[in-house]
């Protein structure tokens, strides 16, 4: 059932980083494959708009 957790442990982390860029940099420094997402608040942080977006997608 928990194959995806075992896969993470067995193969090591391949990371998507959302937020603090330093975390991506420290992982890269350890030769971890990282894709950094330049995260910004969805819909400019407008709560109603976020809910609407989530319903649409």
């Amino acid at each position, binding site marked *: 059932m*928990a194959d995806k*957790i075992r896969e993470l442990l067995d193969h090591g*982390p391949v990371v*998507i980083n959302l*937020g603090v*860029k330093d975390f991506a940099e420290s992982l*890269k420094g*350890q030769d971890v494959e990282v894709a950094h997402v330049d995260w910004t608040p969805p819909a400019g942080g407008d709560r109603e708009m976020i809910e609407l977006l989530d319903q649409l997608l």
Partner: protein
Amino acid sequence: MVTGCVIRKKEYHDSVFLMRVARRISEQKSVLQAAALMGTEKNKVLLADIGIGGKEIEAAGPGDLIVAVKADDGETLSAMLGNLDSWLQLSSGPPGATPFCTLEEALRRQPHSNLVVISVPGEYAAREARRSLERGLNVFLFSDHVPVKDELALKEYAREKGLIVMGPDCGTALIGGKGIGFANAVRRGPIGVIGASGTGVQEFTTLVHHSGSGISHAIGTGSRDLADEIGGISLLSALGSLESEPQTKVIAILAKPPGKRTLANILPKIQACSKPVVACFLGETKNFQQEDHSFQVARTLNEAAAAAVQIAAGSEKLPILAEPQVSRIRLQGEKAAMKPGQKYIRGVFAGGTFCYQSQQILRDAGIRVSSNIPLEGNSELPNPHSSLKHTLVDMGADEFTSSCPHPMIDSSQRRERILAEAQDPEIAVLLLDFILGFNASADPAGELLQAITRAKEEVGKRGGFLCVVASVCGTDEDFQGFAKQVKLLQGAGAVVFPSNAQSAAFCAALIQSLQEGPDGR
């Protein structure tokens, strides 16, 4: 004094980056205070608390950058706010690869991803975690302030999909030897770890490293996982995975005491585990520790590390980490230099778990303290900014970090607190922790050396002596260098230990000895 701010619409930066910007500006001559924040409601309240407000700030949204400065004069203020681009530029690291704009875009380019590390503001964190789980990805959720109902929903969903949510409020993980968040560079080996606290995992893994053994994986659960509202969902997922993972020979569980219902649920599963388990529930009563369990119960992180290393090695002899060695000669020397009336300990911590564990060790020695994170039986500090008799304060708690950098990144607040403690004529012992590793300050000891020296001088001027006791959590593989940090602290006259349990035990023995008077031990 003059105050001013600049607001930049739709310019988002992460919190660690903004802390660096604020620190750089506040270090400039004639600047009294600087804040660089995104315009969330919480941040606007923080700005109002320091006397910065107005219509412009009210109108700012969570996607807008606010940089506010208080300075001695208008010239300084204009120089700071007029050069914002250069402060932002100076605070950013070397340019990396072009970042992606969305999770989907990153996943298309890196389809074999298996983990999403999330450190966005708490109010958006659950949404991003959910979206990650929906795409079949495990989650390391560093963000805190995630509502407990959202945590439960995320973890139940992850369990359904065979995934794990490490967090929220997860500071540390080591997966296949790679440190995520605030982790140390440690050797790989046969010991698997499941930890509810980041600094607890850091201490345990570095102690295992010092003893010559190593870590297979360290999986964080987040601080609330063992509360009854969550029921240990991530702990059980981690336990199952480490049990089946062939490199792991022993499993250590590090947490505060679980909720009653959770304990009843997880105990049979721990007992049924086919691999040996060492459990350290910090703050748990001695009764629990003395009960007959089919797994090994450790009282401190030191004992847990020693037991795990011993079991992994199949050895009957505990490694030297087992019993904190209190150097009686050193203790007597520190005590002899003090003058009558010096009697209190003041602990000023960067790591919450170290503050908590120190309270347990002092409590076991009959010493009750006040704290902003009191252990059962200890009293809550009425004002966290001001100590009272024996006091241990966690400077990483919300009341210190909501508008300032965490003490693991920046020591400014700890520096001020150390100097304030030295003003108290009844202070005898100052207990400190220093945490090395990825993403932590580049020189934690160096940042506080001057404050330690000045505090000692201050007490010396009154004819007394300040005993400074420190623990360093780290390894020589860490970029800050364990030996280098220890040497710096020793050079400043501190008594230095490689673990918090040992430093707290030394303090407990010293306080007991002071209570017994000049002839005691």
